């Protein structure tokens, strides 16, 4: 009998090499400590930490979250300890981990992003993710992620200054996400991650007040999965750089769906809240799917959706 070929979960996102394609989504995994009480977080492909800004941010007033059908809204307001706080309080623990560390950064100007990216590169994080859903103060508050010119400038300028792998995280709140994927690729981003949350809102009809203090918030969770899968598929047919897919992933089946749609890796966000061990179960589940389907390298699943030609 032939020796069973071992299943290979390794993926190379350009220079960023992961032991498996499952990572955490920014803002849903803190800085790693909390979930390390539940399982061995070194088993993850990568950890993406909560977004870091130059100065500490207090975030929005409470209530910040509410539940919606198969989803949730959040308006945390990017609460974070700031660059210095991160370096002092969080980085030492992260440095002890045997998995890749990706830092999500956010700013109100191109300079903010450059300073953050350079700082992260200098301390040796494995990749930097640009959260472009923040308002661009210089451009009158329009988010970097929905204004093509600001978006292009941001990535181009950051790229000039750092060699660390750059991930651009795309906002789904746009008419044509392919356009942004292409700009990210052309501006030197090493990969793209998508989707960030979709802007939503919910009202308590008894108090007649919005359910979150910020009025609008970001919708995440299984409810948005079909939108996220569609966007990953659209982008994967547009760019050649690797895609990190996310939006509503809870189970191995969800993760595989994103990979078939064209993602090289996936991230779990809200899913961590539903099941703290979701990421670990997803890694196992992908493995057993591959062995059932006779696939030896997870890379062979990326974009392996089949469809009738005439529909493309």
């Amino acid at each position: 009998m032939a020796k069973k070929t071992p299943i290979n979960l390794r993926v190379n996102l350009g220079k960023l090499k992961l032991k498996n394609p499952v990572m955490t989504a920014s803002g849903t995994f803190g800085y790693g400590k909390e979930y390390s009480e539940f399982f061995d977080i070194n088993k993850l492909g990568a950890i993406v930490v909560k977004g870091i800004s130059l100065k500490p941010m207090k975030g929005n007033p409470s209530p910040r979250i509410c539940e919606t059908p198969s989803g949730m809204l959040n308006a945390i307001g990017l609460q974070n300890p700031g660059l210095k706080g991160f370096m002092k309080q969080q980085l030492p623990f992260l440095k002890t981990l045997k998995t890749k560390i990706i830092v999500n950064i956010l700013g109100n100007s191109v300079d903010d992003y450059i300073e953050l990216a350079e700082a992260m590169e200098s301390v040796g994080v494995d990749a930097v993710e640009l959260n472009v859903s923040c308002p661009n103060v210089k451009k009158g508050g329009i988010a970097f992620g929905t204004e093509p010119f600001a978006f292009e400038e941001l990535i181009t300028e950051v790229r000039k200054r750092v060699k660390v792998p750059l991930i651009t995280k795309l906002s789904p709140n746009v008419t044509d996400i392919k356009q942004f994927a292409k700009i990210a690729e052309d501006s030197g981003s090493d990969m793209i991650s998508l989707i960030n949350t979709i802007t939503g809102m919910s009202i308590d009809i008894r108090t007649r007040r919005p359910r979150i203090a910020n009025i609008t918030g970001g919708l995440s969770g299984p409810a948005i999965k079909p939108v996220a899968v569609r966007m990953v598929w659209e982008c994967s047919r547009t760019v050649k750089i690797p895609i990190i897919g996310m939006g509503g992933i809870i189970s191995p089946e969800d993760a595989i769906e994103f990979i078939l749609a064209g993602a090289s890796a996936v991230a779990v966000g809200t899913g961590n809240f539903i099941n703290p061990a979701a990421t670990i179960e997803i890694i196992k589940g992908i493995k057993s799917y591959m062995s059932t389907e006779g696939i030896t390298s997870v890379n062979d699943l990326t974009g392996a959706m089949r469809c009738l030609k005439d529909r493309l």
Partner: protein
Amino acid sequence: MLSVDSSLDPLLKRPISLHRWLGNGDFQLLYRVVGKGTDILSRRNPGDKLDVIGPLGNGFSVSRKHGEPLLIAGGLGIAPVFGLAETLHSKTPPLLFYGARTAKEVLCIDQLQSLGINPIIATDDGTLGKKGNILNVLNKFITQNPKLKDQYAIYACGPEPMLKAVSTFAVKNNMKAFISLEKHMACGVGTCLGCVVNTTKGHKRVCKEGPVFPVEDIVW
């Protein structure tokens, strides 16, 4: 935090306090059906499995250095307050002020009495104990026994308006007080930053640094 079932609606786990430890890893929860999640929970069958993570956060930690415990429970706030009473009863039984909407919603009375605790009760409709707000009862009680101020420290759980009133009361009477807060939660473990309360030391996570906070820390 517990999942009421495996459906994606409702999606999030529900935070429920540990009511009683029964030993051998067994425990009891005491909850009120208020919405979709607790409704589904109440329809689960004996023997069904639930997905639970916990215990989470800090819980009440009573130190006699603050004084003798004076417990205040409002409505379902009795769930953790009873648990606390049970762990405390070996020594002098604590004082317990217990407010509820109506007699039917006053729970655990027999168990409390078997612990030697005779709660002072108030109901909104007067169907049990005093009629009205439990804080008024407490106020009167302390006014009549002003010396108790220095002997007691407050531990309270209940709806937010009651906790605000507890806070005002404690400040006015210069009493130490600890309150257990409720906030909507997503993760329950400190990662989502959804459940924060504004404190004198910045935003604190109710699920992680709480749910119990000294009143003087809270910025209402």
